[in-house]
C-alpha cells in the first residue's frame, strides 16, 4: 500500500511514494538520502534521529512519514548557513569539543537549538535535564553541556 507524501525539508518542497508504515526517518535517510539524521535505538530513547518539525524537535524514528505530510522539516543538513557557516550552536559544539564519534551529534544539536530557543539562559542543571532524551556514550556529556550553554548564549546574542 503505497502513499504519496509531500513536505518541505530544509526549505525545499519534496515528495515521494512510501509505504504507510514507512517511518519519517526512513523517508529522510533512504528516499531523500539525507543521512545526517541517524537511527540509534528505534525506540525514541537515544535521540540520534531528532529533527525539527514545524519549529519543534521531534524524534523521526518514532513517527510515520505520513504524519509529516505538509510539515516544515529541518534536518542537521539544513542548520548551517547556505555558505557553510556553522549555526552558533554547531560552532559551540566544535569550540567546546562537544562531540567525539559524531553519531549522536546531529540529534544533540537539533534538540539543543530547540531547547535554547525555548529556554534562553538555562542553568547547567536545566540543560542536563533537557538532555534526558539524547544519549551519548563518548563525551560523558560534560562538554555537550558546556557547548549548549555557550551556544544558547550565542544564539541569544545573535538575535
Amino acid at each position, binding site marked *: 500500500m503505497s502513499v504519496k507524501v509531500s513536505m518541505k525539508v530544509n526549505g525545499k518542497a519534496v515528495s515521494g511514494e512510501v*509505504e504507510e*508504515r*514507512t517511518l519519517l526517518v526512513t523517508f529522510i*535517510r*533512504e528516499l531523500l*538520502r*539525507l*543521512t*545526517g*539524521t*541517524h*537511527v*540509534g*535505538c*528505534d*525506540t525514541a*530513547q*537515544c535521540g*540520534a534521529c531528532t529533527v525539527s518539525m514545524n519549529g519543534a524537535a521531534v524524534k523521526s524514528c518514532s513517527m510515520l512519514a505520513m504524519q509529516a505530510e505538509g510539515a516544515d522539516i529541518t*534536518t*542537521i*543538513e539544513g*542548520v*548551517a548557513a547556505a555558505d*557553510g557557516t*556553522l549555526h552558533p550552536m*554547531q560552532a559551540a*559544539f*566544535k*569550540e567546546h*569539543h562537544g*562531540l*567525539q*564519534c*559524531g*553519531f*549522536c*551529534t*546531529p540529534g544533540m*544539536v537539533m534538540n539543543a537549538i530547540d531547547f535554547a530557543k525555548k529556554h534562553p539562559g538555562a542553568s*547547567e*542543571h536545566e*540543560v*542536563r*535535564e533537557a*538532555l*534526558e532524551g*539524547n*544519549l*551519548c*556514550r*563518548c*563525551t*560523558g*556529556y*560534560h*562538554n*555537550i*553541556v558546556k557547548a549548549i550553554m555557550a551556544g544558547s548564549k550565542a544564539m541569544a546574542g545573535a538575535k
Partner: protein
Amino acid sequence: MSASLIGARVQRKEDYRFLTGAGQYTDDVILPHQSYAAFVRSPHAHATIKSIKTDKAKKAPGVLGVYTGEDAAAAKLGGLPCGWLITDVNGQPMKEPPHPVLAQGKVRYVGDQVAVVVAETAEQARDAAELVEVNYDVLPAVVDAAKATQKGAPALHEIAPDNTCYVWALGDKAAVDAAFAKAAHVTKLEFVNNRLIPNAIEPRAANGSYNRAEDGYTLYVANQNPHVERLLMTAFVMGLPEHKVRVVAPDVGGGFGSKIFLYPEDVVVTWASRQLGRPVKWTAERSESFLTDAHGRDHHTIAEMAMDKDGKFVGMRVHTTANLGAYLSTFASAVPTILYATLLSGQYTTPLIYCEVKAVFTNTAPVDALRGAGRPEATYVVERLVETAAREMKLDPTEIRRRNFVRQFPYQTAVALQYDTGNYEATLDAALKMADVAGFAKRKEEAAKRGKLRGLGYAAYIEACGIAPSAVAGSLGARAGLFEAGEIRVHPTGSVTVFTGSHSHGQGHETTFAQVVADRLGLSVENVDIVHGDTSKVLFGMGTYGSRSIAVGGTAIMKALDKIIDKGKKIAAHLMEASEGDVEYDKGIFKVSGTDKQKAFGEIAFAAYVPHNYPHDKLEPGLNENAFYDPSNFTFPAGSYVCEVEIDPDTGQTKIVNFTAVDDFGKIINPMIVEGQVHGGLTHGIGQALTEGCRYDPDSGQLVTGSFTDYCIPRADDVPSYQLDTRETPCTHNPLGVKGCGEAGAIGAPAAVMNAITDALWSMGVKDVPMPATAQTVWKAIQNASKKAA
C-alpha cells in the same frame, strides 16, 4: 610555524562533517542495487534445531535469498576464530568450540543467528524473516558462570562437558599462601564485577559486495580494526586471499571494544553478496545490539590482601570465575587473564601475587573486551581491597597507599609487567588538593544535618596500554602481531597525506595525528590529512583498542617522519651544495650549519617530484615513506581519582557531588581531546558503578535488560561535571613520550565510586555494596545493616 602544536588545544578537523550531517557511517552507504539482510535469531537460550522451513520466506515479496547453517556448511564457511590461545594450569590448550556463522544444529544463547533473509528492502527482509519456521527442541540453559561448572549443569559444547574453557593461573601459590600465613591482617572481599552491554550509539552494521570484474569483495563495516577484520575473515573463515577483499571502516559511531571483533553478520553479508550478485547490507536494531554485541566484564571474584602490622602489603590472592558467554569471541580468552591478572600489582610494591581464573561457557552473549578490558576488573579488585584494608586497620586510605606506592622505576611487578616510569604520589597529592579532601569532614557534617550521608572514595589505578610488544604477546598466546603501521605521503606542493593503521571512532586522530606531523614538518594542521579505516588505502594496521593509537600508531608515524626528514636532508644537501652531515633540520627548515643557507620543507618536496636538479645517482625521486613500529614495552598510564557522594538513606539514591581525576598520560598532544576521553571514560565507569547491570533470567536465559528502558546507560543528569588535571612522567620508550588515555576513566571510576559509597555506609556496618549501586541496592544494604544492628 613557531609555537609548538604539541600540547595545543587544536579544534578538531573532523567536527565540521559531523556537525553538518556529512559524516559517513556504514549504514549511510547505499550501493547501486543495494539489498538488505535480516537475521533470524534464536528466541531460546539453549536448544537443538529440529528443522528449518524457509519456503514461505523465499516466496515472500522482494525476497532474493534465504540461507541457513546448512548453506554455510555446504559453502565451507569456517567458524569464527579466537585470536588468543590460553594455556591452562596443566599445560593444555584452552577448549575452543566451533563458533559457526549460522547455527549448526544447535543454538546457545538468545540472539544466536540461525538464518538470514535478503530482500529488496529492509522491511521486506524483516517481514520474510518472520516467515522462517524453526522447530526447536528446547534444552535447559545456564547463564551464571558458577552454576555452569556444577555437576549436572547443561553442557553447551561437546568439547567442554564441564563448560570450562580453561583454568589459568599466574604467580607462585605456595609462596603467596606462606605470606598469608604470616600476615598481621588479611582483608577479604567477595564480589561480582557486573556484566555490561557496550551500547555504542551507532549500532553495528555491515555492507558486503562482490565485484565480478575484479573477482573481489568490499565490506563496509562498523569496526575498529579493518585489517584485522580482513585477516580473520579471509584466512580463517572464508578461505579467500586477502588481496581480493577490501574492508572499509568509514566513520564509526563509537566502539568501546565492541567493534574490535569479527562478527558472524560481517561474514554472512559478504558471502551472500556473491551468491546474489548484489550488495547486501545489514544494520543492527538496538535490540540486536543488546542481544549480540559482545558484552563486557562478568567476573565473580574472591580477593584477599595480606598486610604486615604497618599496613604494608605482603601478599595478594585472587580467585576469579569469568563468564565467557556461549562462544569464544575474538579476544575473549585474553581479557580475564593476560589483561587482568598482570595488573593486580596496581601502583603498589606487593611482592607476592597469585591469581587463578576459571573461564566458563554459559548460555549468554559472548563476552569480550569492553573499554578497559580486564584492567577495570583488576583495578576494582586492588582498590576495593586497599580501601577496605585501610578502614579495617584504621589507617587513612591515602596513607596506606603511600606506604605501598612504587617509587623506584623501572619496577618489576610480581605479575610479569615492568613499569617504566610514574609518579603516583604526585597525582594523589594533586587530586587531594583539587577535591578539597581537607574540607570533607565539614561537608559531611553539613550533609548529616540535612539527613544525608556523605562518603569519600579513592582509586589509584594503573593500566597497561600501548598494546603490545609482539614477541611478549606471542609468548603469552597472542595469535597476531601487535605493531602498527604508518605512511607519510608528501605531495609535490608540500601538503601531506598520512595513512595510519590506527582507527578513529571518536578519538580525534584526524586532529591529534595531524598535530604530530604538522609540528614536525612545520606545516599547519590544515595541510595534513589523516587517512584511516580502509585496507585499500592504508598499507596495514592492527587498529585501535587498549588505548594504543598514539603510543603505537603515533610512533609508527614518527618513524616514517624520521625517514622523510633523512631523505629530505639528502635532497637539501644536494640543492645547497653541502655535505649531508652539515644539514640540520628543525620544524620544516633544512639549514646548512654555520651558514645562512636554508631550504623550506616545501622546496624539498617540490624538488623530489620535479627532480631537475637532483642527486639521481644516489636517490630515487619522490617523497613517500612508511614505517612499522613494534613497541618494546607496554605504556603505563596511572592516576588518582577522588569521588564524593551523597546518599539519601530514605531512598538509597546516590548522587555524585564531586568527581576529581588527576591522570598521568605522559606527554599530551591535545589536552582538549584528552579531557574529552577522560570525561567519557569516567561516565562509562560511573555507569558501571551506579546504573548499568546486564541481567539474564536464570531459568529461561532470556535477556531481561534488552532495551534502553531496562538497561540504563548514564543520561546527562546522572553524572556531574568533572574536575580534571594531569601530571606528566613521559613514557621512556617511545619518541613522543605518550602513554594513552582512552580507557583510564572507565578503569578508575568504578572503584572510586564504590569506595565512596561504602565510606558513607561504613559506620552502619556495610562493608560492601554490589554494582550497580542503584537506589534499591543501596537502600537494601542500609536496611540489612539496620536490621543487623537492631
